[in-house]
């Protein structure tokens, strides 16, 4: 072991993963999120053992909270990942601070999202039938189905996010390997550092590879979010069968992903003291981006009204049902909460305010959730025939499942800041060099 080298900016980042102790707030967070995970496990018991009838879903409302939650989480994942990948490519100074943990958030959100497609199945234990393996019946998955698309989509998308994350992480893992004092950690970090030496050749290839993976991820993210939207858009349901809907999914996903990044950034900043790495400039930029994407979403809403006005009767009636039917609060609160709070960030002072940032991010996240509920549930209210008198009303089992995934997400975030450097070490140092 070498003598301690005085290099505060880096040590500060390395410290959390290697430190033996954490603050009380971290442990409190772990406790709370563990409770959430317990709730999640409990909530999965209903669909797994009793039947998904424990949810409020019915015909024609065959999907409800399940798909809304799925679309919400995947939107967050997509938004955060898109943001991170763009940062890698444009080489903005912000990337050092935010891209690593944005991609981590995307990964966590994607895992939360993946719970829903599995457990919303009538027979979740057969979810593996989506995998193309040679069965005794000789049957294969049906590749014309948007659900099959989405299965691959999510699988690949999570893999590529992990790739981007991992490629970026290799040099840092090497640093951790070299800084670790305990044999077990040295081995573990060393295993994943793959023998990284930081030679000129390695750095050159690494920089290129990192950019290529980011470049691959960006179109994939748009495709991914579009494919998620195909689950609804690809159907005959009048309110869903619209070409603008994929764009809406992309825009709302970006907005919610940014909101989640902002939320977690503000929390980490105040709780873990990462002011150095996530500074006012970063937060300010995030605020601006949030504002911009809220404006894009508002534009898409307006465009939707416009096309409905120009479009055929069925389209108009379907949108009208979403606006004024039994589920009108979803539509309007979804619109207002997603679009209005970011307008605070027209003012620089508010962009810098932690309270305003946290509040706006939370409201936006809630708004996007309601927007998804409006699409999924209110969109189903108007079918082609008058077939059912029943309405969908979510049950406690569904709400607790959503709460449970939030707990899981929080747990993953907390554990990752404990075990992995949340901002890029080597980029931070390179940047520190540039500044000095």
């Amino acid at each position, binding site marked *: 072991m070498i003598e301690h080298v005085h290099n505060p900016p880096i040590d500060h980042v390395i410290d959390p993963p290697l430190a033996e102790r954490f603050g009380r707030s971290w442990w409190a967070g772990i406790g709370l999120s563990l409770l959430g995970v317990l709730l999640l496990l409990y909530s999965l018991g209903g669909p797994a053992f009793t039947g998904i009838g424990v949810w409020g879903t019915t015909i024609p409302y065959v999907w409800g909270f399940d798909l809304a939650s799925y679309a919400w989480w995947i939107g967050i994942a997509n938004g955060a990942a898109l943001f991170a990948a763009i940062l890698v490519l444009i080489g903005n100074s912000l990337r050092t601070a935010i891209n690593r943990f944005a991609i981590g958030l995307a990964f966590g959100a994607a895992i939360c999202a993946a719970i829903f497609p599995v457990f919303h199945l009538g027979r979740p234990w057969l979810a593996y039938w989506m995998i193309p393996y040679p069965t005794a019946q000789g049957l294969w998955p049906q590749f014309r189905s948007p659900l099959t698309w989405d299965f*691959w989509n999510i699988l690949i998308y999570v893999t590529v996010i992990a790739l981007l994350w991992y490629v970026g992480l290799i040099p840092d893992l090497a640093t951790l390997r070299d*800084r670790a004092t305990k044999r077990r950690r040295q081995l573990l970090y060393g295993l994943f550092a793959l023998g990284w030496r930081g030679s*000129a050749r*390695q750095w050159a290839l690494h920089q290129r590879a990192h950019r290529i993976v980011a470049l691959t991820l960006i179109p994939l993210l748009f495709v991914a979010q579009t494919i998620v939207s195909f689950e609804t858009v690809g159907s005959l349901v009048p309110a869903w069968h619209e070409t603008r809907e994929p764009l809406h999914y992309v825009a709302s996903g970006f907005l919610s992903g940014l909101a989640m990044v902002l939320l977690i950034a503000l929390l980490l900043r105040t709780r873990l003291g990462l002011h150095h790495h996530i500074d006012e400039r970063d937060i300010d930029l995030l605020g601006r981006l949030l504002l911009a994407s809220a404006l894009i979403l508002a534009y898409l809403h307006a465009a939707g009204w416009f096309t409905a006005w120009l479009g055929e009767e069925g389209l108009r009636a379907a949108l009208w049902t979403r606006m004024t039917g039994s589920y009108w609060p979803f539509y309007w609160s979804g619109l207002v909460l997603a679009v209005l709070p970011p307008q605070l960030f027209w003012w620089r002072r508010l962009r810098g305010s932690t309270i305003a940032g946290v509040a706006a991010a939370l409201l936006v996240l809630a708004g996007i959730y309601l927007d998804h509920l409006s699409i999924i549930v209110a969109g189903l209210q108007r079918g082609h025939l008058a077939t059912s008198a029943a309405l969908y009303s979510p049950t406690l089992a569904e709400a607790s499942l959503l709460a449970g995934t939030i707990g899981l997400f929080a747990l993953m975030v907390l554990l990752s800041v404990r075990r992995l450097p949340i901002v890029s070490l080597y980029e931070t140092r390179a940047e520190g060099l540039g500044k000095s």
Partner: protein
Amino acid sequence: MPGFIARFDTPERLVAAIGRVRDEGYTKLDAFTPFPLPEVTKRLGGGTWTIGWIAAVFALIGGGLTYATLYWVAAVDYPLNVGGRPLNSWAAFMPVVLVATALWSGLATLVGMLYLCGLPRWHHPLFDIGQFDRASYDRFFLLIEGDDPIFSPDETRRLLASLGPEHIDEVGR
């Protein structure tokens, strides 16, 4: 013949050293830094276009293979009338082909990069050098290999020593 590795405390010294050593005519050089230094990678990193080609070619291979698989599954191995759609519903196969292409490209990039880097490997003789673990932290290393045409144990050590390193080590082959 063993080479020499010199440890510098700042990137500027390393960059300057590389310049000097290059000027002297040494070609078998390598540098180890905690973060990428553009001057270093430019001079010593070599070409990286291969990795782009790897990504592109494997993306095409992956996309093609995926499409072929879907075609085989839907139209050859177990053809079924699904909603009256053609057995080879190419348009409906595209989303999966697209995302699979991205997967192949990404994976090929990682694997290709590792291959070109000569990774992964468990151990490397350099790791035995004292304080080489600081190459990932706060020190900058310059290596002159022993099989360099103009390498001479005395001359080369003297040259390196004149560049102001913290320390010089011998590196076995």
